[in-house]
């Protein structure tokens, strides 16, 4: 994601330059998002998301340094950073899942539970087989990235459907996080699938162009959505708000009434 994805040294041609230019724009956008986070004091409100942004910012600087200072080590460093980033991107999902049901005490952890359950199931049944039984390192890496993106897209879709079901209004910040990440994932899934089909010879230049474009679009949406903190809107509810303890006791009462009925 990766400010410097477009700068892979094995590339040639004008598309590579365009990719590098877009990657630099993406890097600037990461800086803007971080700067606005500092100015708006949003770090405490979205801790996982900003940790991820700091990771991307520092990782990109590190990659540029390796690219300029130790070019021979760059491909190895790049692919290592790429692999770690695939996993680190799950923190964005963790942040979204924490925010979606924050106002509802009874289901505050539903987002986190959905994220863990879907990621674990897809990780075991869909992503792990590629690592274990794939032929060739390049194919395995491409397939792993593709399947990880599909897994993230499924988690995001499940979170959105659950949020819609429980009438959770997301607010500008969280909706922006979701929209930006969705654009990135959508582009990534299509791009990786095409790369897998057409192979390196035919698709590599387009790949190194499309990936930074997808990420730059995502960052643009994030920068606009997180420009300033917007509290989550509260839907006018027919019932008055309650504290966590009152809701907990009501939940217990509902469960015990149903249990009594079921045991008859």
């Amino acid at each position, binding site marked *: 994601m990766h400010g410097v994805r477009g700068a892979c040294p094995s590339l040639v041609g004008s598309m590579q330059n365009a990719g590098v230019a877009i990657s630099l724009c993406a890097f600037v956008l990461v800086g803007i998002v971080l700067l606005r986070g500092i100015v708006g004091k949003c770090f405490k409100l979205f801790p996982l998301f900003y940790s991820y942004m700091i990771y991307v910012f520092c990782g990109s600087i590190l990659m540029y340094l390796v690219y300029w200072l130790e070019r021979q080590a760059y491909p190895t460093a790049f692919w290592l950073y790429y692999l770690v980033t695939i996993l680190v991107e799950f923190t964005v999902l963790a942040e979204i899942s924490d925010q979606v049901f*924050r*106002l509802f005490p009874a289901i505050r952890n539903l987002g986190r539970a959905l994220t863990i359950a879907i990621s674990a199931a897809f990780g075991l049944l869909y992503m792990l087989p590629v690592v274990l039984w794939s032929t060739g390192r390049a194919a395995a890496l491409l397939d792993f990235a593709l399947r990880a993106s*599909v897994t993230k*897209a499924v988690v995001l879709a499940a979170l959105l459907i659950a949020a819609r079901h429980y009438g959770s209004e997301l607010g500008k910040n969280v909706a922006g996080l979701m929209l930006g990440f969705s654009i990135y994932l959508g582009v990534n899934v299509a791009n990786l699938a095409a790369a897998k089909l057409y192979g390196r010879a035919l698709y590599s230049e387009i790949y190194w162009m499309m990936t930074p474009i997808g990420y730059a679009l995502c960052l643009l949406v994030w920068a606009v959505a997180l420009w300033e903190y917007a509290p989550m809107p509260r839907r006018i509810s027919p019932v008055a708000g309650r504290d966590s303890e009152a809701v907990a006791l*009501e939940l217990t009462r509902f469960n015990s*009434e149903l249990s009594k009925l079921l045991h008859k």
Partner: protein
Amino acid sequence: MITLIYAGIAIAFLILVIGLLHKPQPLDPDEALAAKSHAPSIGKGHWLHLSERIFDPSDARWLAEELAFPKLAKSLMLGRKRLAIHWLEALQASFDDLVRTPKITPSEAPEANSPGSWQMLWLTLRFKFLVSYALLVVKLVGPYHRLIPSFSWMSFSPGSERSFRRAAWANSRNSH
């Protein structure tokens, strides 16, 4: 072919996200009130007593065995089945209202994942599963069938309520 499938997944995913991110239409106040009227609070005793009558087979048995009116007993059973379904759906609606209840004073900072909130999530999911199961059984075999053979391992003793109250109290202290 695989690429086309993945491209389809990507496009469908983006359409789904954009569709779901649209603001849901706010409920008309009259509509909300009407929806609320068939989902009374569980705190109301008479509503709970109603469930005892609905799920009690003695009336139907009395009609069928003592008065020898099997047709009338069957018709009563069908009526009770409709009532049982309506009662369970109202219970579910009332529970969903509770789950959608916002906090009184939300702190803007994200809260710690305390054991209390995981326990509340467990109670929510457990209820949803059990009420769906109960509805299925009532729809398939009627209200006078024993709903669960034995779920004794999922007991709800007063002790567990006390421990839950403690966890919820600790949770509310953490959040302030």
